[in-house]
């Protein structure tokens, strides 16, 4: 048996093993989903749990189909998604701009430092009602809630990463007589790119929190509205359908950002 055949055999063994491992993992993952939903269904059918409160997968499914057919699910989802994406973008961009400002004016950064700590520690969801007062009971408030929740933490994280950029990159630029503006565009900004991307991941989650809380407060459409309304008419199937939709969509958004991160950061 020559070397190549031998390596090939070892490789094949490994791949076979990996495949088996993967099958086991997939198997248990499937088992968990099936067990979860069927236990839920059975518990609900046999009244081990209160079907009124916990609904059942089958009723949720039927409601889902109905709402897909009459397009209402689509419109609620679109609204919430739009708000979240907007909140996310506004929060992230504004945070990065603030960070740039603090970097450019170190004295400003020193001055606002204690206020940033307070704003960061403050649970932003408590500000919801104030937003309504300030911006009115409309989508702007909801988007603002989605943005505000991520803006401070983005500012802090990105500013920290600006400061942590290896001073030697600046030294290289300085030897070529670069201006401060060039330090920023040529070194600080690109070097902080990976940090910015990973803030995005956090911000996606935060924007969802903000928008859902915002929709709890004021809304006539959206998944948060569906939850509140579901409570109002005691339709828990509706509440749970909305929760499942939120879980699904927020996971997808998170995965998108992760994928984006992997694509962009491989060279670091």
């Amino acid at each position, binding site marked *: 048996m020559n070397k190549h055949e031998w390596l090939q055999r070892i490789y094949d063994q490994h791949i076979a093993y990996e495949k088996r491992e993967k099958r086991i993992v997939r198997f248990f993952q499937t088992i968990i989903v099936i067990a979860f939903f069927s236990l839920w269904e059975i518990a609900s059918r046999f009244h081990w749990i209160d079907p009124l409160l916990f609904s059942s997968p089958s009723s949720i499914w039927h409601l889902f189909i109905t709402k897909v057919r009459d397009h209402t699910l689509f419109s609620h989802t679109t609204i919430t998604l739009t708000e979240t994406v907007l909140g996310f973008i506004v929060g992230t961009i504004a945070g990065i701009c603030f960070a740039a400002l603090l970097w450019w004016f170190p004295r400003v950064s020193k001055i606002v430092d204690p206020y940033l700590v307070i704003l960061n520690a403050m649970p932003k969801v408590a500000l919801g009602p104030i937003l309504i007062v300030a911006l009115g009971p409309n989508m702007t408030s909801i988007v603002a809630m989605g943005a505000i929740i991520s803006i401070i933490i983005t500012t802090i994280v990105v500013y920290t990463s600006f400061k942590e950029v290896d001073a030697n990159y600046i030294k*290289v630029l300085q030897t*070529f007589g670069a201006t401060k503006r060039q330090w920023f565009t040529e070194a600080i900004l690109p070097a902080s790119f990976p940090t910015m991307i990973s803030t995005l991941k956090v911000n996606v989650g935060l924007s969802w929190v903000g928008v859902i809380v915002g929709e709890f407060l004021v809304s006539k459409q959206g998944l948060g509205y569906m939850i509140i309304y579901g409570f109002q008419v005691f339709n828990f199937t509706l509440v749970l359908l909305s929760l499942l939709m939120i879980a699904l969509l927020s996971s997808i958004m998170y995965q998108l950002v992760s994928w984006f991160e992997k694509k962009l950061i491989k060279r*670091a």
Partner: protein
Amino acid sequence: MPILTIDQVMHAYVTNQSAVLALNHLSLTVERGEFLSFLGPSGCGKTTLLSIIAGLIEPTKGRVLIEGKEAKTMRQTIGYMLQHDYLFPWKTIEQNVTIGLKLTGKYSEKTRKQTLALLHQIGLRDVDDRYPYELSGGMRQRAALVRTLATDPKILLLDEPFSALDYQTKLKLEDLVWETLKQYRKTALLVTHDIGEAIAMSDRIVLFTAKPGKIKRVVSVPDSLKACTPFQARQHPDFSPIFQMIWKELESIEQT
């Protein structure tokens, strides 16, 4: 006129805790085309001195003149190479080596071609569009050398450029850098911890005392060694005695 005059330079670093003297009454002149090495214990102020020469920090006292003019105004004439390559990871090798040209406004099709030619000449072919992470340590350090040379500086400051490389790569790069600098007749100041490297590459070796840095002694390398490439010099019979001498000198500095 000497290309570089360091005149009674003193430098103190001031923090909120204390003021620490890093360089103490340092004077030195360097002639065009000379190759000097700086040897001395860690923290004795070698990097500080290079930064002052490069005009990046202002000495607390004293003057540094390049061709008779204030160092701060002569930044363009100086190339600075650091211990690690500090290639920008988000730029291709071509973008990295031409960044100096772009920042100094010297970028043109001609200078670009010249720079890429130098890159190839120095043994980096087919890497123009690669990113730094795709290159080995030695290749990256070579690219950093090209970046430094691209703007055609008169004085090269080399701050331990080989210390992060493995032994064989280092010996090879020493030869390459030495030959390139000789070919373009550059003046060079090399900071190193490796006594052998200092002897093998330079015309004069400046020994520093420990904190605060002060010139302890300047050793001239015998002409027999100057004539050889660094690799040959290390094997030369004249090498060992001067190595021993410097070793003892440094030992005595460290004990004080």
